[in-house]
């Protein structure tokens, strides 16, 4: 009984919460040197896209978009296949507009560079190779100096530290070989604490303008931080910036926590927690850390929850007398609806972006496979037919793919398939990969990779949907069950 009391202990409250630093709405600003007509800008953008380096770059991303010409038969990605040439870019240290901004200017420049470089799509030309110096943000660009070092994209910027603690970051992106800006200059205003967010905003804008994909650097990830031996692992909820910075802990390690997911606006996290002694779906407010459990009294165990895209509902699994089915809770009315009634296991539900359908995992055929059904319940149609066992499907925010875990021949894989189950491609393979989550732009997947044996431990990894650029995400300790949050506002 003494051990049982562990969970009654007052929970250690973290020093600060997982709330993001505020940033004011970005402002476009007049472009002194290149204040050109809209029409001209568009044609310049087109020209940029036609440039040879951009063609190579786009070809890689095109593989993954619905508009791409598809080769007949099932597409199979070899992880080692098709290494693309990353796009060379230069980002001279942002100009500090006052002395107080000196350090921030360096830090912000460093994070912008890291964001872009870590995508595997860009390569920074080191600053010591630069010929030109950017002494003033508004000075004309000497494009020949940047061409000479083969910088194909150039990012310039400035940082001003206001006496009131706010900082102002301005930036411009240039297509060096067209000698033209790509898009308008942007200005971000925020607190000095939020400097990393401003760097991510700049990098997001550059990434989006060059790739045509949505931004994702200015986002956070919730995950389970782990420590202790494998047979007595301690787990607690943590939130970090997408790149591993600013880790904060939301729960103590007194009870097991599993598989957290953000609410669509990022203000709440829903997870499976053993705080009561039994696994229960629990919602925690990211700012106040208040908790509330979800699930009926007759439900022995409730788990695998997710918010609906409009935040009005929660879908989850519950076990009653050994049988696990899907349930939906209407958060406005409190009404609970049972969505499946099969004697098989139905779990790991995930909404389509419009909230109309659910993809989930069921072993009704004898082994776990993926099914899609209306969000209100009904007949599910099976979408996975390959060899092996499929689980933890997650619908892409772009509505083009479903990512999943696949277990086959003693190995685990993260894969993607179209929402009808076609064009299955495996992105990874290892002893134990599981639990994919999508970046807000639907082009990168994060997941858990656990190593084998007594000393085995989990870590977070990212891979892009072409299967390229597998990278371990930085976390302070072992980590599992990542879930990417929305793009911050």
């Amino acid at each position, binding site marked *: 009984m003494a051990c049982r009391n562990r969970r009654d202990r007052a929970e250690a409250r973290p020093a600060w919460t997982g709330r993001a630093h505020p940033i004011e709405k970005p402002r476009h600003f007049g472009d002194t040197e290149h204040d050109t007509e809209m029409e001209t800008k568009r044609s310049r953008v087109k020209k940029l896209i036609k440039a040879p380096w951009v063609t190579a770059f786009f070809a890689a991303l095109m593989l993954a978009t619905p508009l791409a010409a598809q080769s007949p038969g099932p597409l199979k990605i070899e992880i080692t296949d098709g290494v693309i040439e990353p796009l060379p870019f230069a980002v001279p240290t942002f100009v500090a507009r006052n002395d107080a901004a000196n350090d921030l200017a360096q830090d912000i420049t460093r994070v912008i560079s890291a964001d872009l470089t870590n995508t595997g799509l860009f390569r920074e030309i080191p600053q010591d190779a630069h010929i030109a110096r950017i002494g003033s943000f508004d000075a004309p660009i000497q494009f020949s100096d940047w061409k000479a070092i083969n910088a194909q994209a150039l990012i310039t910027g400035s940082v001003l530290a206001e006496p009131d603690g706010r900082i102002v970051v301005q930036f411009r992106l240039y297509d060096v070989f067209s000698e033209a800006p790509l898009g308008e200059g942007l200005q971000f205003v925020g607190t000095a604490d939020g400097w990393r967010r401003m760097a991510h905003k700049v990098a997001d804008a550059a990434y989006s303008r060059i790739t045509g994909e949505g931004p994702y650097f200015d986002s956070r990830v919730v995950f389970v931080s782990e420590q202790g031996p*494998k047979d007595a692992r301690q787990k607690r909820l943590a939130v970090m910036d997408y790149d591993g910075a600013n880790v904060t802990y939301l729960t103590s390690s007194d009870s097991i926590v599993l*598989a957290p997911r953000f609410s669509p606006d990022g203000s709440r996290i829903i997870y499976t927690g053993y705080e009561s002694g039994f696994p229960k779906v629990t919602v925690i407010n990211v700012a106040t850390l208040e908790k509330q459990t979800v699930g009926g009294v007759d439900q022995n165990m409730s*788990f*695998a929850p997710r918010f609906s895209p409009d935040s009005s509902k929660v879908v989850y699994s519950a076990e009653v007398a*050994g049988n*696990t089915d899907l349930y939906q809770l209407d958060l406005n009315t409190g009404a609970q609806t049972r969505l499946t009634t099969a004697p098989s296991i139905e779990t790991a539900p995930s909404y389509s972006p419009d909230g109309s359908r659910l993809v989930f995992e069921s072993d009704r055929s004898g082994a*776990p496979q993926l099914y899609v059904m209306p969000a209100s319940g009904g007949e599910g149609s099976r979408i996975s037919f390959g060899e092996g066992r499929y689980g933890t499907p997650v619908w892409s925010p772009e509505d083009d793919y479903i990512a999943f875990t696949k*277990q086959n021949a003693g190995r685990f894989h993260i894969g993607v398939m179209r929402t009808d189950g076609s064009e299955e491609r495996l992105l990874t393979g290892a002893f134990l990969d*599981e639990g994919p989550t999508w970046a807000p732009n639907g082009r990168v997947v994060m997941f858990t990779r656990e190593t084998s044996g007594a000393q*085995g431990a989990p870590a977070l990894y990212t891979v892009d949907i072409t299967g390229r650029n597998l990278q371990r995400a930085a976390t302070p300790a072992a980590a599992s069950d990542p879930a990417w949050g929305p793009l911050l506002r």
Partner: protein
Amino acid sequence: MKSTALLLVAAMALTACGDRLGRGGADGAAGGANGGFGAGGVVPGSANDPASVAYFQQTVGDRVLFLVDQSTLTPEGQTTLAAQARWMNANPGYTALVEGHADEQGTREYNLALGGRRANAARDYLISQGVSAGRLRTISYGKERPLQVCSTEACYSQNRRAVTVLAAGAGV
């Protein structure tokens, strides 16, 4: 003798802790060794005492094992559960939490559900052998609390289990 009794209490407390995670065996054995150097008779609460929790864990057997991805009881499992039921029927002052566990080969969610199936398979069998449903509750730990930590079948086979954890109380 007083200190021996204290030792025993300490050993029992350890056992109770381990048992919540299905690791009672090793700690229970230590309790049994302590019981052995008593006055020669049965030390109440020791593994020699048929009414003790230690006896239930070691002699009756507090766990049943499952095949890969299965929640069907094996013949050995049924024999163990029948003995557990006889013990519970003879010792009405206990309730039990039946823990379901899975090995690490599977996703977290699926393994939670599988652990739920296993715990309920054991519970249902206990009920079929006359144990009142009000004395039994189930919980799944999925793959969160392995008993053995290697990544081979030798460990996995021990981790695919349902463990009956006793607690003092009459149930509902």
